[in-house]
């Protein structure tokens, strides 16, 4: 099993450095320590002290936790295995990240009552804004003092809060959907933008502002994404991103699929990332199960993930060029994507969403002849990338169009929870594959590309260089693919190893239950962060000792990246916004889940 950055040897996690520091500052009484299988320091904090503790962690402590990495909630009302945790109906979970410490801390606050409330932390961490709106939308928990606590995922006309346990999951449990003329009018009216609601003025003494709707369907918005721009001429005074047009309820889905049958849903979160999405989920489940996978599995997984990093970055590269005005590169890059898909398809049997990783292994062994295909590809692509370097990146028009546009620095990036190439373009070299190697990345020789400008152009440069590094990693996989099984020999591996079945009635029953109901994961909490195509992606799983997850939370990078848009783009022109959107690299499924 890969070493977790927080690996410590304590049971309750109280030997973590940060926990000792907190105890020294606040005493032990406001806290209850919880042990989790991911060994992340996890503390329950008294509701009245949480603001104080967060402020201390962000501003006062040495080597601070500058990033609010995640904020979510858990409906605990039906949870059975709570192991002496503080009583709670709903738990708010804050997860902070410190780059300087290369470490996280998870803070939890217990809330009681059916529709509880808690003070907002938008005053401490700005990016808590959307996270709190999401928790309000999906759980019905009120955040007092939030600047605009509105629904974010679901339409404003929605009734109920879907992630509460009493809310039905399936669309087929409700009346069939029908779009009546009256409903159409009502929904369209609800979509009308009201500037006052967002604290915007309709004009000044001299001029009126124009409000422009960009989206929910716009050719350069990269999906069902809506931005409302407040314009003074062509200059953007302010803007409001509106998301939720792609909310597929992936987290609720986790509560009704078995651990195994949830894998295909992960593929469709960042739908350009393919099996890369399986990885954090599978690794988190394997931590729960206590499975150690063979080296061959780790290497196969790394190789496939890097293939998808390349296909995703190629699409980014092409659409980026197109959005800043270069029409041809995208056509060449899609041809290269086809070549990559040919290899992926030969190995996994599918193109975009192979759902090919399994709990404790991968679906098949590598097919005979895989090495020839992979070799052809790694020899083919670098030459093409060199051509694009000349045709696109060194093109003076493209440079002039994108240099110095939509700049932000590392501090801003951390404040908004920005990870991935968007962070590394500001000079930080934080890449989880290096900082906290997982799935055997510690065995590979590669560099973390960075840039210092923090602008649109640099974000593209970093990704292009990342593709070259991915090719380097794939080459190493090709030359050093370990022999051995493609599945772990463990009772919770799913599907179970075939040679362990059909021996006698016992093995037959175990196998039957394993493939029909699915494996039962031990109760506990687990998470895994990975460096995905678009930034840091992680799954936070709570098992209640059943065949299904009690709560699946997915932290996606694109959600954070879109929330940052207004702070970066204020004062720029509309074409700069288009270039900026192109440089973020997001897909809406990765935002809304």
């Amino acid at each position, binding site marked *: 099993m890969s070493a977790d950055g927080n690996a410590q040897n304590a049971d309750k996690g109280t030997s973590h450095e940060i926990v000792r520091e907190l105890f020294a500052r606040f005493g032990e009484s406001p806290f209850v320590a919880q042990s989790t299988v991911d060994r992340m320091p996890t503390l329950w904090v008294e509701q009245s002290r949480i603001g104080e503790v967060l402020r201390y962690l962000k501003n006062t402590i040495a080597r601070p936790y500058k990033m609010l990495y995640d904020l979510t909630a858990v409906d605990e009302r039906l949870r059975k295995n709570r192991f002496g945790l503080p009583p709670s109906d709903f738990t708010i979970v804050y997860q902070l990240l410190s780059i300087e410490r290369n470490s996280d801390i998870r803070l939890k606050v217990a809330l009681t009552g059916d529709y509880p409330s808690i003070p907002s932390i938008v005053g401490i961490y700005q990016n808590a804004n959307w996270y709190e709106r999401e928790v309000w939308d999906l759980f019905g928990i009120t955040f007092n003092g939030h600047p605009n606590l509105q629904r974010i995922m679901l339409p404003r006309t929605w009734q109920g809060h879907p992630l509460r346990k009493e809310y*039905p999951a399936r669309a087929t449990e409700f009346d069939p959907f029908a779009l009546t003329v*009256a409903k159409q009018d009502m929904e369209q009216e609800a979509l009308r933008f009201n500037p006052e609601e967002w604290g915007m003025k309709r004009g000044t003494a001299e001029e009126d502002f124009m409000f422009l709707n960009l989206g929910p369907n716009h050719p350069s918005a990269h999906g069902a994404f809506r931005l409302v721009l407040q314009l003074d001429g062509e200059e953007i005074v302010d803007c409001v991103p509106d998301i*939720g047009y792609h909310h*597929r309820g992936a987290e609720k*889905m986790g509560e009704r699929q078995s651990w195994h049958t949830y894998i295909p849903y992960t593929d*469709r979160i960042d739908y350009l990332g393919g099996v890369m999405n399986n990885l954090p989920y599978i690794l988190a489940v394997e931590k729960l199960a206590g499975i150690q996978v063979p080296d061959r599995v780790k290497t196969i997984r790394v190789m496939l993930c890097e293939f998808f990093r390349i296909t995703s970055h190629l*699409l980014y590269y092409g659409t980026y060029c197109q959005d800043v005005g270069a029409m041809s590169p995208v056509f060449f890059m*899609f041809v290269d994507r086809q070549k990559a898909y040919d290899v992926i398809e030969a190995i996994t049997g599918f193109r975009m969403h192979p759902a090919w990783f399994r709990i404790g292994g991968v679906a098949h062994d590598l097919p005979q002849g*895989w090495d020839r*295909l992979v070799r052809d590809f790694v020899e083919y692509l670098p030459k093409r990338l060199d051509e694009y370097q000349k045709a696109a990146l060194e093109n003076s028009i493209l440079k002039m169009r994108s240099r110095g546009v939509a700049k932000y620095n590392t501090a801003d990036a951390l404040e908004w929870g920005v990870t991935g190439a968007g962070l590394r373009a500001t000079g930080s070299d934080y890449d989880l594959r290096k900082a906290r190697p997982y799935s055997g990345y510690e065995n590979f020789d590669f560099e973390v590309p960075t840039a210092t400008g923090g602008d649109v152009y640099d974000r593209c440069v970093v990704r292009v260089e990342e593709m070259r590094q991915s090719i380097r990693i794939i080459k190493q996989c090709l030359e050093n693919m370990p022999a051995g099984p493609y599945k772990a020999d463990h009772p919770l591996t799913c599907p179970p190893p075939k040679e362990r079945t059909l021996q006698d009635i016992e093995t037959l029953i175990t196998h039957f239950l394993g493939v029909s109901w699915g494996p039962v994961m031990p109760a506990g909490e687990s998470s895994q962060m990975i460096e995905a195509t678009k930034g840091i992606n992680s799954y936070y799983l709570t098992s209640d000792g059943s065949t299904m997850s009690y709560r699946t939370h997915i932290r996606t990078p694109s959600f954070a990246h879109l929330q940052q848009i207004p702070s970066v783009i204020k004062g720029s022109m509309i074409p700069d916004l288009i270039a900026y959107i192109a440089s973020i690299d997001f897909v809406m499924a990765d935002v809304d889940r």
Partner: protein
Amino acid sequence: MEYTLTRIDTDGPRYPQEQREPARDPMEDQMHRSIFLGKLEDMLKGTVNWGRKNSIWPYNFGLSCCYVEMATAFTPTHDLARFGSEVIRASPRQADVIVIAGTCFQKMAPVVQRLYEQMLEPKWVISMGSCANSGGMYDIYSVVQGVDKFLPVDVYIPGCPPRPEAFLQGLMLLQDAIGKERRPLSWVVGDQGVYKANMPSQRDKHREERMAVTKLRTPDSV
């Protein structure tokens, strides 16, 4: 061939605002009345349909994963230009077909409906991928279980997501269907309903051939 007559019903309480009834090919009746005029109309309609089906301009509209595969079909390896459909239009007013490529959400449905209304007749709808066809694997509170709950779909493309080749096939099936359509030649000439041929199900058509396959390639070699 059996036809379905579709008439707009602006008073309909829900979308699609239309009424459908089974019909026979209207050209047959015309032939029985006057050979000359029937032939003339047949030729005119044939010419118009030929033009329409070979220049179906798609609307630049995508919802999720399927759109990536749809976009792949526009690029050189698949080259949609062979079918006259490479001209993506950014405005619904210039587009002939809207491909619902991806999951249709309850929050998005009113927007999709508005965009569809902004398209001009004649217009067609392709539902691409399992989500648009039926909700697919997303039987979940936020997802409309099939875009045909409010749009009149002409062709369904199965797959999650369908390959670009499947999209090309879907487009060709739509071309076949358009070739058999009987639409009024003008808004002042003739009957204003739209007669669409009931195209055979591809599943039924290929069933025997598919069932006859007994040997499948193993996944053990490339």
